């Protein structure tokens, strides 16, 4: 229950709340970045150890060890793939922070917010298709912006050249 003597009664300093949320996100990401760098450094070292072991290996003499080294290298490659989650996470959080900053700036003007322009700016921050899809599903009707086409469950994607991991040479 709120304290009736609180200076906040009846109003919420929304700008300050948005600032706080943005700061909390920033601190969390700084902590995560340090750990992610440590982890990715370890994964890179596992890969390098595998390479050094293979260079010294006599495959004919020790085929079992050769199999183990191959397994180590394959595992290091899988870990390298998975470790890229941090880069994506950092970008997603940055886009959220940018969207919060847009809302904050709009509120600071004090006038009637131009919600259409604000939503358009928010959507423009997103670089990943699933970010845009989520925005469209939640705010697409309000934003009145061109939306990504609906994707029925189990549908085969036609734009496979933009799927994670895809490679296209021009």
């Amino acid at each position, binding site marked *: 229950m709120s304290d009736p003597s609180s200076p906040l009664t009846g109003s919420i300093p929304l700008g300050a709340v948005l600032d706080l949320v943005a700061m909390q996100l920033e601190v969390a990401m700084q902590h995560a*970045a340090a750990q*992610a*760098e440590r*982890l*990715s*450094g370890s*994964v*890179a070292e596992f*890969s*390098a150890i*595998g*390479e050094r072991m293979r260079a010294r290996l006599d495959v004919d003499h020790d085929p079992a060890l050769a199999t183990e080294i191959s397994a180590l*290298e394959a595992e*290091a*490659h899988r870990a*390298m*793939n*998975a*470790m*890229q*989650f*941090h*880069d*994506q996470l*950092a*970008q997603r959080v940055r886009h959220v922070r940018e969207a919060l900053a847009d809302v904050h700036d709009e509120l600071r003007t004090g006038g009637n917010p131009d919600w259409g322009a604000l939503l358009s700016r928010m959507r423009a921050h997103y*670089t*990943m*298709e699933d970010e845009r899809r989520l925005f469209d599903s939640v705010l697409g009707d309000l934003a009145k912006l061109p939306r990504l086409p609906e994707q029925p469950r189990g549908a085969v994607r036609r*734009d496979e*050249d*933009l*799927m*994670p*991991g*895809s*490679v*296209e*040479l*021009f």
Partner: protein
Amino acid sequence: MNRTIMTVDDSTSMRQMVKATLQSAGYGVVEAADGQEALEYARQNSVDLVISDVNMPRMDGITLVGNLRTLPTYRLTPLLLLTTESSHEKKLEGKRAGATGWIVKPFNPAQLLATLQKLL
């Protein structure tokens, strides 16, 4: 001959992953944290291939590609963009700037190495 590849990304962990992948295949690796740093290096040195992120502070990857293509040394160098960016418009922008290819993160190390083999 030992080939040298420049990896450009503002994420340290991404650079580490790309570097480890490339070194495991015997490539030499040069790192840059954004397009500006990469361009400054490229003005003084040549590399055999560039792998660059798109969204970076100071200079983005598409601007970097455009600038590299103006340098005589980099006119024919393969320039790959490695990005989370999934809009066709951005990809087209990269192609128009002179990029050789577009890879969507997260990259698969074996697939990346196979792509490099085709280009080098």
